């Protein structure tokens, strides 16, 4: 089983040199801590920044320099600021190579639900609907099951949809799954996890065949 940081670390292996990457709030944000050596990526923050740097040193924080999570951050050499329309413009135009998001549910056709739980206070979709409708390559980072122990990898989302047929890959504490026309294809399994564990906790169509590696971090 992977912990949150290990999920992030595994996703970081998907990064390629020169990629433009948008990381959502939560586990996705942690991916930035595990960028492989020799790989440089440019992080986009959808509030209007390309080239997001680390948190500022204590005392050097600037209220005008924040990320989409409203955290104080820094720029790096090569950073560029722009307005929110251009920010989502480049997202819609498919210029972001990789988008990593959290989710409440993912369906085996790539549908995602991550913005609203009926009966609970709805805070809004923020940029999530724009991102999932446009990103070329979306990886979802999430726990395999919800707090009630129910699978979040479903044949159909039960919660209100954020976007249709858009998720390409899911990484959970149990493994790495590509979403293809056949459903969730198990590609890699976490150390200490059995295929039976994965089958038991996956409600959507699961494909277990071919070469299934153990995740190496």
């Amino acid at each position, binding site marked *: 089983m992977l912990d949150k940081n290990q999920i992030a670390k595994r996703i970081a292996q998907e990064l390629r040199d020169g990629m433009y990457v948008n990381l959502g709030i939560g586990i996705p944000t942690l991916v930035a801590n595990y960028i492989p050596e020799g790989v440089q990526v440019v992080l986009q923050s959808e509030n209007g920044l390309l080239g997001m740097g680390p948190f500022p040193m204590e005392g050097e924080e600037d209220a005008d320099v924040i990320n989409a999570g*409203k955290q104080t951050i820094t720029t790096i050499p090569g950073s560029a600021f722009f307005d929110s*329309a251009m920010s*989502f413009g480049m997202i819609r135009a498919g210029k972001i190579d990789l988008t990593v998001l959290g989710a409440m549910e993912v369906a085996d056709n790539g549908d995602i639900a991550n913005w609203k739980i009926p009966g609970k206070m709805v805070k809004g*979709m923020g940029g999530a609907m*724009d991102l999932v409708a446009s990103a070329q390559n979306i990886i979802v980072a999430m726990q395999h099951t919800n707090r009630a122990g129910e699978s979040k990898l479903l044949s159909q989302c039960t919660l209100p949809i954020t976007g249709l047929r858009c998720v390409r890959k899911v990484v959970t504490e149990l493994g790495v799954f590509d979403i293809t026309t056949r459903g969730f294809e198990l590609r890699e399994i976490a150390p200490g996890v059995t295929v039976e564990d994965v089958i038991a906790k996956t409600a959507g169509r699961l494909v277990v065949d071919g070469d299934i590696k153990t995740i190496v971090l």
Partner: protein
Amino acid sequence: MSNKVFAHASDAIHDISDGAVLMLGGFGLCGIPEHAIAALVKKGVRQLTCISNNAGVDDFGIGLLLQQRQVKKMISSYVGENAEFERQLLSGELEVELIPQGTLATRCMMAGYGIPAFFTPAGYGTEVAADKESRPFKLFGQEKDYLMEYAFEADFALVKAWKGDTQGNLIFKAAARNFNPLMAMAGRITIAEVEHLVEPGQLDPNEIHTPGIYVHRIFKGDHFEKRIEQRTVQAKSTV
């Protein structure tokens, strides 16, 4: 030259009255028109419709207007971080319309560009698409479904810039740019508050983000609090 410069926020917003539709720039508490908001609180106008990406926090930003129950409707993409907001929403006092962030930004820009409608994929297949026209288009070799969305206009746009000149030319700073230049273009009357108000010629014509033609009134804020919502830092000892 006709004068766009106002001495105080209260003068600049003097004709915003009950029921007005406002746009307010900012992302979270970053780049918000804090002086215009304070003046609106003082003036006590009510039944406002506020188009703004967020709704502030309990004691800052649009939260101050919510506290005084001056807001009838919020049009936003994300409204967390605000307990009073939640209370009013659940009690039915406050109306809320949620719009995807990119759609919100683009709808403002389109008004300023004189484009009444456009197509975006955001929200297709979701409840956001209810009652909206949709159709497939191909772009960069990819076909998918898009929703038709309309330009957004407002009676007044309240924006915050870093520098401005007396003709209304504006330069924003860093991530405080966000929705500000977009909303500046979408107001029937656009009111800009700036940290530095300078004479024409002191801003490089090449660096201006919002040309003065879009800005009707401008004033220098006395002191910007620029509150930080999530102060995240690296401890110095870790270096």
